C-alpha cells in the first residue's frame, strides 16, 4: 500500500450539473485530490451495491479544488446504462470511487510553448494540465474539436488559461468547420509550439502524433482504451507500444498509460497483436488454436 498510490473511498456528491451535452459531477474526495496529477483518472462504481453492472467506469479528472478538504470534478456524456445512472446522482449521494489512477502527463522542465489538443470529452483532462504548465511558466494554446457546439465546453475558462483557443466543429456550429487535425499544424506554426499534448479518439491521436513527428515535436497522448478494472489487474486494456529498446509490447493503458509518448504508440496496429510484438504468435512460440466445436474461453 504505497504512500502515494490510489485510494478507494465512498465519496459524497457535492454537485451535479449540466455542461452543454455533458454532465459534471463534483465529489468530495480529499485523498484523491491530494494525490492527483494532471492526466490521471478515477474509476467509479455504478448502479449501487446490488447492481448488475460489475465494472467501474473510468473518467478523466477535470478539476480538483481544496474545498471540503479536497474535491474532484469529472465530466461525462450519458452513453450507456452506467453513465445514465451517474447522471441521476444528486448531491449527498455516495459514490464508490478509486483514484487517482494511471500515468500523468509528464511536465516539461523548462517554460516552453505547449499546444493542447482535445477531442470531445477528451478536452477534460487538459484543463488541469494547462494550469500545471502555466505554473511552470509555459505558454498554453488550446485546440478543441467536437461534433457540434454543444460538445465543446469550458471555452471561457480555456480563454483565461491559454494564449489562444482554436475550436473546430464537424457541423460548423462553432469555430471553424472541420476537424482539429485540419487546424492543428497551423496552430503549431502560429504559436511556435515546442511540445504537444493530446487527448481524444484514437484516429485523432494518430494524426496529431504524426503531425508532431513531422515537426519533430515531442507529443504526449492520452488514450481511451476500454477498461475493466483501471488498476492493472485484468490485462484488458492493452495497446501495442514500442519500448525504449525498440521492442513492441502489449502494455496496459490503465497503469502504463493512459498517457504515452505519441511516437511510441502503434496506432495503426491498435486492436491487433502486431506480428513483431513480444510474445506474439510466431514471435517465438506459436499460439496454436483448434477450431473444434466452438468458442474459446479465457484460458489464461
Amino acid at each position, binding site marked *: 500500500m504505497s504512500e502515494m498510490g490510489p485510494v478507494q473511498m465512498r465519496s459524497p456528491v457535492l454537485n451535479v450539473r449540466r455542461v452543454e451535452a455533458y454532465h459534471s459531477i463534483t465529489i468530495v474526495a480529499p485523498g484523491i485530490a491530494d494525490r492527483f496529477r494532471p492526466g490521471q483518472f478515477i474509476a467509479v462504481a455504478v448502479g449501487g451495491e446490488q447492481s*448488475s453492472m460489475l465494472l467501474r467506469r473510468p473518467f478523466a479528472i477535470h478539476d480538483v479544488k481544496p474545498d471540503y478538504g479536497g474535491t474532484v470534478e469529472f465530466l461525462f456524456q450519458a452513453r450507456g446504462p452506467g453513465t445514465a445512472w451517474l447522471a441521476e446522482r444528486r448531491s449527498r449521494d455516495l459514490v464508490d470511487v*478509486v483514484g487517482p489512477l494511471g500515468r500523468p502527463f509528464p511536465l516539461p522542465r523548462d517554460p516552453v510553448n505547449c499546444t493542447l489538443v482535445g477531442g470531445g470529452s477528451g478536452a477534460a483532462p487538459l484543463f488541469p494540465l494547462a494550469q500545471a504548465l502555466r505554473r511552470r511558466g509555459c505558454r498554453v494554446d488550446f485546440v478543441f474539436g467536437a461534433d457540434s457546439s454543444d460538445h465543446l465546453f469550458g471555452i471561457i475558462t480555456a480563454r483565461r488559461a491559454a494564449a489562444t483557443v482554436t475550436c473546430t466543429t464537424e457541423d460548423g456550429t462553432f469555430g471553424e468547420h472541420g476537424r482539429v487535425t485540419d487546424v492543428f499544424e497551423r496552430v503549431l506554426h502560429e504559436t511556435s509550439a515546442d511540445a504537444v499534448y493530446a487527448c481524444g479518439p484514437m484516429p485523432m491521436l494518430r494524426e496529431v502524433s504524426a503531425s508532431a513527428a513531422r515537426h519533430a515535436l515531442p507529443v504526449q497522448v492520452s488514450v481511451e482504451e476500454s477498461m475493466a478494472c483501471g488498476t492493472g*489487474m485484468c490485462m484488458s486494456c492493452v495497446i501495442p507500444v514500442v519500448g525504449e529498446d525498440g521492442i513492441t*509490447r*502489449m502494455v496496459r493503458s490503465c497503469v502504463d498509460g493512459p498517457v504515452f509518448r505519441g511516437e511510441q504508440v502503434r496506432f495503426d496496429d491498435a486492436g491487433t497483436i502486431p506480428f513483431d510484438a513480444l510474445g506474439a504468435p510466431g514471435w517465438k*512460440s506459436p499460439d496454436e488454436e*483448434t477450431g473444434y466445436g466452438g468458442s474459446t474461453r479465457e*484460458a*489464461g
Partner: protein
Amino acid sequence: MSTDLRTRLGRLELANPIMTAAGCAGTGRELARFVDVAQLGAVVTKSVTLEPRAGHPAPRMAETPSGMLSVTGMQGPGIDVLLERDVPWLRSQGSRAAVSIGGGSAAEYAELARRISGASGVSMIEVNLSFPNPTGRGQDFADDPEEAARVVHGVRSHARSDIPVFAKLAPDVRNVVELARACVDARADGFSLVNTVRGMVIDPGKLRPAVSGGGGVSGPAIRPLAVACVYNVHAALPRVPIIGMGGVRTGSDVVEFLAAGASAVAVGTVNFADPSACARILRELTEALDEHGVSSPASLVGAAHRSARVDAEQ
C-alpha cells in the same frame, strides 16, 4: 469468540481461506496498492506459459449481467521471468505464492512444473486445464478426462513432492465429477473450481462479437454454477481439498462455498469491481463465523452436505 482462520489444503497451511484467483490480481503488486497481500491466504499468479505471450488483441472484455466476458489469451512474461521477478516479490512481501500454469501439451505443463520446482518460493501449482488442446478431441484439455489426467499426471510427476498440485476445472463440461475423478486418479492433490464459462457477447449496434471468438464469463453471474460444481465434486470426493471460486463478492458468499465443500475460496472478478474486496471479505467472513458460532472456517466445510443428510434421514 476468538476465531482461528488457519486453513488446511491438504498438507498446505494458509493463514486464512481467502486467496486471489489466477489472472485477477495482476502480479500481486497491483492488488497490493489496495490490500495487504501478506494478509491473504495466498496469491495465485496469472497462468504462465513457457515463453512470453502477447495474448489476444483488444477488445478483450465486455460487461455482462452481473459478470464479464474476457479473454486475455494468456498474455504473460513466461515462466522464467515469473520465477525471477514476481514470485520473489510476493515472498518479499510475506505473501504465499501459488503459480498457475498453462501449456499446449502435457510435456509443456510438465516442464513448467520442473522449472517451478527448481526455483524456490512457490507454495502450490495450479494446473489450468482450460487451455486449448491442439491434439485432443476436446477443445480444451479439460473437455476430455483422459487428456486432463495426462496433464495432471505429468505435472505431479515433475513437481517437487512438497508442492501440492491443484487441478483447475470449468463448469461447462459434460460431467465435472467424472473429470475430477480422472484428475485424482492422476494424483491431483486438490481442485480449483471453477474457471470461467464459455460465452459470447454481440455488440447490438455493430452486429459483431464484442470480443472476437467469444471468451470466458466470470463474476457473480456464474456463482450458482460454481457452487454446484464444488458441491458435486465434494460429494463424490469428500477428502480432496477444494478451492472454490466464481463470483465471490462477500463474506456470505464464502460461507456458501465452504458449506458446499470448499476449504478455501479465491476472489477473482470482484477484485476488478472493488480492489479492496479481499480485505473486506476477510472481515465479513470473520463476522459470519461469529454469527454461526463457530471458531474456524473448517467447521463449515461441507456443512450443506450434512444438513442434506439430516433431511434425508428424517
